[in-house]
């Protein structure tokens, strides 16, 4: 069997090669699909930090995906209409610069996670799931009922935002950008997992009593993990909005939270590269089975059932040898 690190390399390489081949074959739609996989995988990598590593089963990560999306939508729509977001007490203008949008998306998501986390991390288990779900629905209904930014219909952004030195409207260039972001985040999270913080976070997951007994404030560790996790998912939300040039309240819905969770389960809970494999399988199924039957989600359901019952390590676990998390 493969070592997990080798399998990870293969997965990342495949994600890079497919759009390059599609470029050679002049199949731009495949490039767009690969971009979608990359962005959704990023959202999954974010959630996986909280859910996999930290054991925090958040059913509210759509909040951060949506906030990332709306950060992009709101900033870009103001840039598009040349109207400032706010004039007093100080001027805030819209922007169509991706780096600025990303920073705003990350900061907004982290702040929201701080608030949601402070309130929800007092609970655990099923209650934590329910509280995060409830917060998610609050954001969803708020987005629907807030007419300034499209309400239920969402917001259309006509031109993709810009990144210095790139033409983001060229599919392969936008893919390359998203892929680079994903690689950077994977590098960051792999460092994190192997750090003292990562050890404390898994320790708090595997045996909270033990972690506290050695002097670790597990609530704080979890809160920090939740915030970082939200920042990553928020960044993915901003990219997703840019991919579609459209944001809508659907990004906040619990379906979105569930979908991100499905990537993780399919790929392998707590496996760093799991969400990439999971998102790829999901998008492939959605695209090819979806073309063939409207009820493709039934097949997805069956696959999920199989994974949960018989292959809990997901795709990565099924295809590779288990390696210690901290070696």
């Amino acid at each position, binding site marked *: 069997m493969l070592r997990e690190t080798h399998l990870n390399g293969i997965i990342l390489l495949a994600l890079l090669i497919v759009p390059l081949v599609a470029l050679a074959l002049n199949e731009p739609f495949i490039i767009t699909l690969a971009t979608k996989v990359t962005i959704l995988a990023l959202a999954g990598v974010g959630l996986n930090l909280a859910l996999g590593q930290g054991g925090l089963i958040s059913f509210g990560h759509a909040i951060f995906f949506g906030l990332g999306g709306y950060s992009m939508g709101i900033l870009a729509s103001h840039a598009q209409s040349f109207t400032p977001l706010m004039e007093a007490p100080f001027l805030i203008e819209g922007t169509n610069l991706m780096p600025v949008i990303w920073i705003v998306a990350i900061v907004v998501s982290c702040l929201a996670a701080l608030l949601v986390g402070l309130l929800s991390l007092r609970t655990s288990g099923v209650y934590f799931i329910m509280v995060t779900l409830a917060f998610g629905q609050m954001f969803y209904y708020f987005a629907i009922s807030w007419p300034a930014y499209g309400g239920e219909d969402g917001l259309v952004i006509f031109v993709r935002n810009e990144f210095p030195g790139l033409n983001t409207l060229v599919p392969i260039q936008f893919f390359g950008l998203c892929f680079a972001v994903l690689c950077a985040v994977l590098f960051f999270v792999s460092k994190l997992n192997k750090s*003292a913080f990562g050890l404390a976070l898994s320790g708090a997951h595997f045996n909270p009593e*033990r972690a506290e007994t050695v*002097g670790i404030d597990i609530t704080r560790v979890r809160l920090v993990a939740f915030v970082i996790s939200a920042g990553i998912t928020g960044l993915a939300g901003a990219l997703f909005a840019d991919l579609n040039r459209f944001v809508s309240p659907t990004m906040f819905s619990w379906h979105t939270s569930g979908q991100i969770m499905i990537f993780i389960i399919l790929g392998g809970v707590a496996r760093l590269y799991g969400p990439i494999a999971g998102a790829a399988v999901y998008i492939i199924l959605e695209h090819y089975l979806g073309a063939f039957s409207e009820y493709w989600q039934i097949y997805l359901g069956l696959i999920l059932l199989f994974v949960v019952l018989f292959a809990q390590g997901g795709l990565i676990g099924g295809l590779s040898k288990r390696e210690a998390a901290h070696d």
Partner: protein
Amino acid sequence: MTEPILSVRDVHKAFGALKASDGISLDLMPGEIHALIGPNGAGKSTLIKQIAGGLTPDRGTVHFEGREISGDTVYERARLGLGRTFQISALAMQFTVLENVVLGLVGESGSVFRFFRPVMKDPAYLERAHHALKRVGLQDHAQTKTAELSHGQRRQLEVAVALTLEPKAFLMDEPMAGLGAEGSKALTGFLRELKAEAPILLVEHDMDAVFALADRISVLVYGKIIATGSVAEIRANPEVRAAYLGDEEVEA
């Protein structure tokens, strides 16, 4: 007179009608092993939990180094220097032995919020971790998954993790349980050395170990301490013999 490191004053804890702690007062002095003995269900573990945190007394106080800690959380008490081992091993089973020990070092050094340095490659941690493992005799199992350890080895690991905290006092809840004669003897020798580093409040059913180690013994029955004294005093105490030592070979 020297001040006690740990001082429990008039602690009460009831579970419904059951008085698990019924006005317990007890001191742990520097340099001593204070054994807490008593029949099953007497309330020994309940008292340890109230000292270590995680269970709040209905009434009464706990002082550590002269400072009241009754309102502190488990991790705050640990950081003050209370090292604890559990009656039922509480370890991260998915971790390797070494990871469990390094987790202890991370907690002890307060370096939880270090995000980039690979902790399992940090020479300072590794050296201290291997040293702690060596002291309890687990040096050959550093890379073993904790779930694969025998019961006795888990008890040893509990002690190793407590050592990493370099505590000012140890709370040990039946560290000998399930160790077997050989293991108990080894641990008895080890605890005798350890008390030079920090005093130990030792809950133990193994009377050989208790009589060999204890400087003082307190006897807990139905949530009340019925006697405190030296080994000789406790052995001679008629009330204790009736309540607890009654059926045992007291002359052992």
